[in-house]
């Protein structure tokens, strides 16, 4: 029987980690992730989970210890946010390059300077090409469910790649909402026993991890990594199917909301998708064919599937909660544009930057965007391809 609780997103994810029981967890405190590891640490202190904690002196060492522990041959997790993820950056590439199935919740937060502890997606967007799988989550339930699925995906023998589970700092991390927990035994059966691949601890079969590869073979190695990552989409879908049987909750590469017959659409990640769905309902009530697409698997990005889902629309706004400066577009806008480029007939596309550093994203912002999309479909003209919303002029 599932247990329904009122819990914060961080609490839910901490509970998912307890249920999965990684062999080793290395962590370092950073807002707004801290609550997650505090809760997990109290599970350890109270004997509710048999995980060895490594309380390191920095995120750089957290990821380094995870690399060592994962190569040693066991299940490994950590968690971080913002500057912590930025400090890990160097080792993120080593974790994926060495094909180590580390699982890491990333509680999304802005980057300095200026210093700001609140939500935006700059942190994970900066690491989108680090070779990690990225799965994004709208609410606490999704963050919980995605954390459990992440272990199955990461540890799949066809890929063995690290996974980030992204969810919004404070908005989801610290807010209390309804979460349906699976039973401990169900989660443990679902993730299964960890299967070792070339463990460093196998003294009888000594291996060298992390060789130097010069120009003669480096590129082949990178191409092989690309080929491995190309298998991720199918595995994510297979794991989602199995998870649906267990939980009744359906997951895909992305979620579409009232998109099938839509003329205008919004593409948006994480918690802001919830707000947007409400506004879309209001527009639908007024007879306006509006829809939404919320990416879930962001890396590797499912370009073909995304293009197929969006190509019928007349106008789309991609809302990015992260920026590139000097008129450069938001990261997700670039990916959506790439998805649609191959089609002769394609929607008009605009980009809005919203919610940086925890700035509220309100229903009126979604209304404003949808009204603009209506205008674009009427006139066939785009006034501005990139604009900021919810900002003082």
């Amino acid at each position, binding site marked *: 029987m599932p247990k329904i609780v009122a819990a914060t997103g961080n609490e839910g994810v901490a509970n998912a980690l307890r249920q999965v029981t990684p*062999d080793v967890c290395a962590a370092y405190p950073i807002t707004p992730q801290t609550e997650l590891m505090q809760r997990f640490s109290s599970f350890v202190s109270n004997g509710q989970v048999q995980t060895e904690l490594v309380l390191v002196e*920095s995120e750089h060492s957290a990821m*380094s210890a995870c690399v060592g*522990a994962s190569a*040693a041959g*066991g299940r*490994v997790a950590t968690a971080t946010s913002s500057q912590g993820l930025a400090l890990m950056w160097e080792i993120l590439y080593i974790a994926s390059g060495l094909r180590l199935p580390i699982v890491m919740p990333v509680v999304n937060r802005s980057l300095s300077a200026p210093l700001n502890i609140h939500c935006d997606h700059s942190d994970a967007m900066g690491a989108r090409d680090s070779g990690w799988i990225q799965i994004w989550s709208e609410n606490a339930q999704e963050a919980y469910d995605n954390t459990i699925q992440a272990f199955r995906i990461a540890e799949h023998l066809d890929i063995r790649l690290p996974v980030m589970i992204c969810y919004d700092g404070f908005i989801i991390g610290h807010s209390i909402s309804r979460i349906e927990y699976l039973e401990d035994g169900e989660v443990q059966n679902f993730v299964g026993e960890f299967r070792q691949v070339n463990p460093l601890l196998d003294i009888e079969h000594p*291996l060298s991890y*992390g060789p130097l590869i010069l120009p003669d073979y480096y590129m082949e190695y990178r191409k092989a990594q690309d080929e491995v990552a190309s298998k991720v989409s199918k595995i994510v879908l297979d794991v989602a199917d199995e998870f649906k049987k267990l939980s009744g909750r359906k997951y895909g590469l992305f979620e579409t909301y009232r998109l099938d017959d839509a003329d205008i659409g919004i593409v948006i990640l994480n918690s802001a998708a919830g707000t947007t769905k409400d506004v879309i309902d209001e527009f639908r009530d007024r007879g306006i064919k509006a829809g939404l697409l919320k990416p879930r698997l962001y890396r590797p990005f499912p370009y073909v599937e995304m293009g197929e889902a969006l190509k019928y629309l007349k106008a789309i706004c991609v809302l990015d909660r992260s920026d590139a400066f000097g008129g450069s577009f938001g990261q997700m806008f670039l990916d959506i544009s790439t998805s649609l480029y191959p089609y002769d007939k394609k929607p008009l596309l605009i980009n809005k930057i919203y919610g940086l550093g925890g700035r509220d994203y309100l229903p009126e912002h979604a209304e404003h965007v949808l009204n603009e999309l209506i205008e674009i479909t009427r006139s066939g003209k785009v006034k501005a391809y990139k604009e900021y919303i919810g900002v003082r002029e």
Partner: protein
Amino acid sequence: MAKILKLRELSKKDVLISAGHRMCAGCGAPTVVKMVLMASDYPVIAANSTGCLEVSTCISDYTAWKIPWIHSAFENAAATISGVETMYRALKKQGKIDREIKFIAFGGDGGTYDIGLQSLSGAMERGHDMLYICYDNGAYMNTGIQRSSATPFGADTTTRPAGSAVPGKTEQRKNLTRIMAAHDIPYVAQASPSHWMDLMKKVRKALEIKGPKFMNILSPCNRGWRSRTDDSIMLSRLAVETCHWPLYEVENGVTKITFRPKQKRPVEDFLRPQGRFKHLFKPENEWIIKKSQEDIDREWEKLQKEEALFAS
């Protein structure tokens, strides 16, 4: 307690870093690694920071390491091996592994004194059962002899070359061995490949002690020291006999000098055979040699006092 080392028995042991690696002829590091691994009676898993030793011993598809070995990055050998050791403890607790295994990290002075100091300090403080070995050749040799905080006072390096305005390195060496001893870990030692028995005994002692251990081992580099390829061991001996590199250990806070030169030689004897100190023998740089001697004398004096303190 580890058994006494016997040369006859040592000669029968496998050399766990194979010949054919691409370290320079005359480099001290592979000699140090060979001695360290030979000293262990236990299976060893090693981590290696980026550097000469790492790039020259594992170029795909070849490896010189006959033990499990991991290289991750430059500054994180200590954190990496701490992760391996933690997984070992986790799996041992679960009954999935029962063998006694020892964990050793190797880093050069750049990867240890400088960029890896935080990672090392953290791993030591956390109390992992590991031995960290710094092979100290006194500069960033892998990238081409740049100054590090381990570079001796006055030495010529490519980023602090001796010129008409700057006489080489103008700062004293960081005393890393003391910094590690200040962590109050169970065992810290300084060793030199010239005194191989002393070095190997220290490794054996360290591996018998549970908890974090640190050894700083001098590792001559003929490219950076501008010396003859066949002078490595002689130079490391001179470093010890001049007390530029005193051999001592700090076990549970107790300092013990493990080799006392019969007659302490003047520092010039160590400096003269090395091209990196050539400019110090010009009259205008005499003060550098004088200051180096004073620094050495003071440290040697201090070590003897500390030893006496515990002997009484």
